[in-house]
């Protein structure tokens, strides 16, 4: 269990580090890369949790590896807070405040939309399956 979380965390952190190398944030700029990483991670978490709790009976290590490990290692709360702190302390309070407010709003919208969309797709898939079944009778 611990090994699965640890391995997943390494995969997620490498993906985040890779994203920061591909698109580094300039000093004083709005930290778009961290925002994007966090919002994408939250959206994937929404899809994953609906699938794993409402659809699949996955292997017991899937959730610790992917949910706790990969997505937990990919997204970061500490970089978000220190980005805001640095922006405010280096004389960019507006950018700092925008990061502070926009990130949780975008993350919550991301996870909420992902959960709702996944449930909608699953429900339409089920009703389509029922229609086919009835048509075949």
């Amino acid at each position: 269990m611990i090994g699965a979380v640890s391995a997943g965390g390494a995969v997620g952190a490498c993906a985040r580090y890779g994203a920061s190398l591909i698109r580094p944030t300039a000093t004083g700029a709005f930290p778009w890369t961290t925002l994007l990483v966090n919002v994408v991670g939250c959206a994937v978490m929404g899809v994953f949790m609906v699938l794993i709790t409402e659809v699949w009976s996955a292997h017991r290590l899937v959730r610790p590896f992917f949910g706790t490990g990969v997505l937990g290692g990919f997204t970061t709360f500490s970089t978000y807070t220190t980005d805001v702190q640095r922006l405010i302390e280096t004389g960019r309070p507006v950018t700092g405040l925008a990061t502070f407010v926009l990130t949780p709003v975008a993350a919550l919208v991301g996870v909420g939309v992902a959960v709702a969309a996944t449930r909608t797709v699953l429900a339409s898939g089920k009703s389509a399956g029922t229609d086919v079944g009835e048509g075949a009778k």
Partner: protein
Amino acid sequence: MNWLLVVVGACVGAPLRYLTDRAVQERHGTKFPWGTFTVNVVGSLILGLLTGAVSAGAASPHVQLLVGTGLCGALTTYSTFSYETLRLAEEGPWFPAAANVVASVTAGLGAAVVGGALARVWWG
């Protein structure tokens, strides 16, 4: 080398989050996600301190990768924070969900500021 530092840090940070969350959640009877709150605030404090140490020249960029990008990045989480907030909002009144967001972001930012201030006191 850089990637290895991130991997080693994350290999420690992610299970530390998992174990802290379990230990904290076992100690209270509410559904409020204090475990995630704890790792996010503690991780923000450590990263604030570390970032200050690096800018003061007291810590190397390698330590930043190991402890900052790897350990603190994997110790803290936005995905679990937002999913737990959504669950709180779905399951009951809106207040605990809103309180989780406001408390987490303000305490996290406060911890980062305190970490930065401590770094200035020690290495400034």
